[in-house]
């Protein structure tokens, strides 16, 4: 550690922009009460977009800040990814927040701030930074989940999420402390180097540390059996936040997992591989089975996301350059799809207050475009062709099978079949069920537009994945230092 640290603050400009945006939003909210609150959403979206564009400046760079965070293509990729996600969430929130929530300034500010946390989770190559970034994201989410103050379900969800999150943090930290103790460092590269030399003196301590880390991160990404907060938080949280949970929170968890496991823990892959395989398999099975019994759309999508986590964890299990690029591709596809689904649900909820599956009865008559968007998203989630889900699942499963986890891929394929049933259940209500009345809802153009863009994204990933796949492949190579 003799050579001087690079403390080039310009590397952090996108995050500074985000911070400034957050403050600006708060400021506008407090100081300019006459501004329509919807405008806050667009200010936030604009700021995020600016930061996104700026962050593209670091394309193909290989730089680091104090060896804590690395501004490489992986980071740039996730910067863009998280910011884009937040843009869509913010836009989708505009009408919802206006209608259902107070304190819009805090709401948007927290979303923007949490994006910083997510980005640093992906960028960090050092445990302390990674942990703190994770807490930044988590804290924001705790607040956002319980944002509907007068809604008892939101409070309850927030409390459960918060307390269990703290509990999981403690487990994670304890695990990290053992890894720190055995490897003697918190830097990924040094941990990797230390483990490369062998863990003979610390067999059990390493295992315990790994188990705790898997558990702690498993909580963040909602893997069974650390998933229990997920359905409750999804159901209790305001709808856009549910979407945010299912997109950014999950993706950030995987970004961290990818960095950590590929950068630091690869030498002990034999130790954790089957741990991850176990929770991957149980997540796929339990998530998809329990989803069969859900009648609340948010809860249904929560369980469905648990199943999806299972698929993605397979990618961690059989971690390699190929699998990680497939995993990233799947993640992009999944997030785009999920955002499309939630955009449609949020827009429909704004108009009708629908939340239960049977509330969606006759959606195709009352809001045909939204129904189509949701249908596309559901088919994509179920892994049907034309849409992102088919391709990304195919490549992910294929990669996993090719990397020695054929049985896991088999479980995934079957679980994926089960998932089709509950997506069809929702589809049926949307298209076959008779609506209570036939009048059409007026849906704001912004939401329609955002939904259409996301739907086109779903098609894009499903039909022309080459550009994205090349990007994720490059990113994965960066991850594995190739």
């Amino acid at each position, binding site marked *: 550690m003799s050579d001087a640290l690079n403390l080039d603050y310009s590397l*952090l400009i996108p995050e500074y922009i985000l911070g400034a945006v957050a403050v600006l939003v708060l400021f506008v909210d407090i100081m300019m009460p006459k501004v329509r609150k919807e405008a806050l959403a667009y200010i936030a979206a604009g700021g995020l977009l600016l930061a996104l564009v700026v962050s593209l400046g670091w394309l193909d760079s290989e730089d680091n800040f104090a060896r804590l965070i690395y501004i490489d293509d992986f980071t740039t990729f996730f910067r863009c990814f998280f910011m884009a996600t937040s843009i869509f969430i913010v836009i989708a929130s505009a009408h919802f927040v206006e209608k259902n929530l107070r304190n819009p300034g805090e709401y948007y500010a*927290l979303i923007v*701030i949490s994006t910083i946390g997510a980005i640093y989770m992906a960028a960090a190559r050092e445990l302390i930074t990674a942990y*703190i970034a994770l807490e*930044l994201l988590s*804290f924001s989410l705790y607040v956002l989940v319980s944002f509907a103050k007068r809604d008892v379900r939101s409070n309850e969800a927030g409390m459960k999420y918060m307390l269990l999150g703290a509990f999981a943090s403690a487990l994670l930290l304890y695990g990290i402390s053992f890894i720190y103790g055995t490897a003697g460092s918190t830097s990924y590269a040094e941990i990797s180097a230390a483990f490369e030399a062998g863990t003979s003196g610390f067999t059990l*301590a390493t295992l315990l540390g790994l188990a705790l880390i898997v558990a702690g991160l498993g909580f963040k990404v909602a893997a069974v059996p650390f998933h229990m907060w997920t359905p409750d938080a999804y159901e209790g949280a305001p709808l856009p936040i549910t979407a945010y949970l299912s997109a950014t929170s999950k993706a950030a968890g995987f970004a961290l997992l990818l960095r950590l496991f590929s950068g630091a823990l690869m030498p002990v892959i034999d130790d954790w591989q089957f741990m991850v395989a176990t929770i991957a398999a149980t997540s796929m099975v339990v998530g998809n089975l329990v989803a069969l019994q859900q009648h609340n759309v948010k809860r249904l999508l929560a369980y469905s996301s648990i199943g999806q986590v299972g698929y993605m964890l397979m990618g961690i299990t059989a971690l390699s350059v190929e699998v990680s690029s497939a995993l990233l591709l799947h993640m992009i596809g999944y997030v785009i799809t999920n955002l499309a689904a939630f955009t449609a649900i949020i827009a429909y909820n704004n108009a009708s207050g629908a939340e239960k599956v049977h509330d969606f009865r006759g959606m195709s008559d009352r809001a045909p475009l939204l129904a189509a968007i949701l249908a596309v998203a559901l088919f994509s989630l179920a892994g049907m062709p034309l849409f992102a889900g088919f391709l990304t699942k195919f490549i992910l499963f294929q990669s996993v099978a090719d990397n020695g986890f054929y049985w896991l891929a088999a479980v995934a394929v079957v679980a994926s079949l089960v998932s089709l049933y509950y997506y069809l259940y929702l589809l049926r209500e949307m298209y076959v069920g008779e609506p209570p009345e036939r009048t059409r809802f007026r849906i704001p153009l912004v939401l329609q537009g955002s939904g259409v863009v996301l739907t086109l994204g779903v098609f894009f990933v499903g039909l022309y994945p080459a550009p994205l796949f090349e990007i994720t492949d490059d990113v994965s190579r960066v991850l594995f230092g190739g």
Partner: protein
Amino acid sequence: MTVANLVFYLIAMLAIVAALGVVTVPNVVHAALFLILSLLAVAGFYILLSNEFLAIAQVLIYAGAVATIIIFGLMLTRGTDLPTVSVGGQWPLALLASGAFGGAVAAAVIDSTWPRDVGEVTLVSISDLGAVLFKDWLLPFEIVSVVLLVALIGAIMISTQEGEA
């Protein structure tokens, strides 16, 4: 057995007993007081580990601020109930699980061959710590400040009464 050892055992005993108190006594206020005790004992560990800064921080932040907030919290959430609570129905399972967990930790600790005699246990002076913290670790520090900001905003936003009617 050196004095240091003896002191360690005493502090450890204190910390553990107090911790047990936290998780077992029925009266919540007593539990909170036990927590303060336990946290103070942990501060003792830090002193043993030659880290006064951390000990001070522990006492100030935890035993001072945190414990106070918690007691406030207890008071505010007491409602009509007596400040006593019974243990949850799953305590036997909890005991088993935590016991097993402790066993696993013990096994892991025993199994490992830690570098026993580190010739150079360094005293970290507050100035060293400060220098490193605000230079090498500035980024996490900044992030933590944002975390605190978030917690602040969140706590205020969520617990305020305004406009509730």
